């Protein structure tokens, strides 16, 4: 079973099953509204895959993925606002929320986001580059463990506060009311469905990339750094570089997820990217099983789904239930839900040994 899962055939059939669910089953059984929600959850799952890599395999407790998610989201949102303004009143026009705020002139840093190509490049490169620079500064100084976690969380908090103060980025309200996504009207159900398909395809691609990284020599090295960083350094590796790669890849995934979140959900504001959303990103990963490939995906989807449906019915109780769930998983099941089959196997083996002993 294990060998099958690791074989090429096993991998391909796993992806085929995933594609069948995402592209076949989900659009069939979910209404347009629910499909949109599912696309939103998939965005969280894309972030989760990156956290699984950086935290689960690399041991970096990334408590501030909201920064990179937010960067991707705001970069995309700026382009969508520019495109809307251009469609409405011609090139160089000021987005509607700026007009309302009395800003007549387009700020210089907005100008390049009229270009779709520039926007996509920025989404892919800016957060990744920032994470790489940050990672180099932090990991070369051997900041790790709780210190790194606090640092990254503080960064998420600071980023949200910074954005609230930015009038030209919508301030507290953020950016919303997007009409077009690269020329397609966003309120057309067909386009919404297409957007869902794009998001699902990105999830599959991100999982495939994470799988390749895990199975490569780099993946083994990353686990080695996680478990015995000093040993790795004394073997002649610069351990900081190994961590930077995983951290930057996690930032890339978060940024892409943010960029998809904007057209899917239709709004991005500081409230979706600060400290609490950053912890929420982590929650699903912890519950699903951070060191596994699919645990973070399943965990993120489950937590997001539970939050939406249960909080509709029990708005106040849900928060407590969520906290309790987190505590229980961390205390009793540190490997997450994904570790249950393994644990069950161990219990079974123990019982078998006990019965053998009893009969002997």
């Amino acid at each position: 079973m294990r060998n099958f899962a690791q074989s090429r055939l096993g991998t391909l059939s796993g992806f085929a099953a995933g594609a069948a669910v995402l592209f076949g089953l989900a659009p069939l059984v979910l209404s347009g509204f629910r499909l949109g929600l599912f696309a939103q959850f998939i965005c969280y799952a894309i972030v989760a895959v990156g956290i699984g890599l950086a935290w689960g395999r690399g041991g970096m407790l990334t408590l501030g993925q909201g920064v990179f998610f937010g960067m991707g989201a705001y970069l995309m949102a700026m382009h969508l606002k520019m495109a809307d303004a251009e469609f409405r009143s011609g090139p160089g026009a000021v987005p509607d929320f700026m007009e309302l705020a009395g800003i007549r002139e387009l700020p210089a840093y907005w100008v390049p986001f009229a270009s779709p190509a520039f926007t996509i490049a920025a989404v892919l490169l800016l957060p990744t580059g920032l994470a790489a620079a940050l990672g180099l500064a932090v990991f070369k100084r051997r900041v790790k463990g709780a210190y790194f976690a606090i640092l990254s969380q503080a960064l998420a908090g600071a980023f949200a506060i910074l954005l609230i103060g930015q009038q030209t980025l919508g301030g507290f309200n953020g950016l919303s009311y997007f009409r077009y996504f690269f020329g397609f009207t966003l309120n057309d159900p067909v386009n919404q469905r297409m957007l869902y398909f794009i998001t699902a395809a990105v999830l599959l691609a991100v999982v495939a990339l994470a799988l390749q990284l895990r199975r490569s020599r780099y993946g083994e090295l990353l686990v080695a750094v996680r478990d015995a960083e000093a040993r790795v350094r004394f073997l002649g590796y610069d351990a900081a570089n190994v961590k930077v790669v995983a951290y930057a890849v996690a930032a890339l995934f978060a940024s892409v997820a943010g960029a998809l979140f904007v057209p899917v959900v239709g709004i991005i504001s500081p409230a979706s990217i600060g400290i609490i959303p950053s912890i929420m990103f982590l929650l699903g990963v912890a519950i699903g099983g951070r060191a596994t490939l699919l645990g973070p995906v399943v965990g993120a989807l489950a937590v997001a789904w539970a939050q939406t449906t249960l909080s509709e019915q029990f708005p106040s109780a849900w928060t407590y239930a969520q906290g309790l769930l987190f505590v229980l998983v961390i205390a009793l099941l540190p490997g997450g839900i994904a570790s249950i089959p393994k644990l069950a196997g161990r219990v079974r083996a123990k019982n078998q040994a006990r019965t053998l002993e009893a009969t002997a």
Partner: protein
Amino acid sequence: MNDTALSRPAPDPVLVCRNVEVDFDGFKAVAGVDLELRRGEVHFLIGPNGAGKTTLVDAVTGLARYTGSITKDGEELRGKKVHRIARKGVGRTFQTATVFENLTVAQNLDIAAGASRGPLTLLRRRKTLPETVTDTMKRIGLDDAADTLAGVLAHGRKQWLEIGMLLVGDADVLLLDEPIAGMGHDERETTGRLLHDIAAERAVAVVEHDMDFMRANASRVTVLHGGAVLAAGGVDEVSADPRVQEVYLGTSDHQETADAAAA
């Protein structure tokens, strides 16, 4: 055997420490040590607790700051980063065997062999094990455990794996910190043979508390006491030194084992 090793014209030293001082906020853990390691020798560093043995190893491998000079093949190592020094061929083990417990023996060795791999090789999956890895597995007696997780290896085999990781990494100066701590009799003998086997074309330094093991395996001994070299030379020469007997060998066996346990 020890005398013949000394009477031969000594080859040029690979690693040379000159007047090395390590200062921990005013406390001199290592106070002006000179040391030379040569290929073909198993060089024991002994001394009571707090003598500065492990600190000296830390200094050589770039973990502890020091004044003075440490050169390998004539190249100054001071101020170089830990991984740069490792790449120069200076490898070390730790008092408690440090291996990658969640990876297999083969993966451990493959990582150790690959410090100079480029990004493209790293991002691909490993198809076959490099020859040095399979050879080394035989050499350290772990060829039956290639796919065993390092975390479940017996204590002694973990130590051998760690030594093997230095071998595949092409280290030619090996600094081993208490390699037989906690080993049984047979494992000690095997380790002794392994040390001489790998010392044939490398310089090996062993920090050790076990006097019997030292007498059986040392080609040369340096005794440290209070951060300074108390005596150096062959086993018999050093054992006969009255000062050494006073500070170290004179202590009862009971004290010695207590020291080893405390370390």
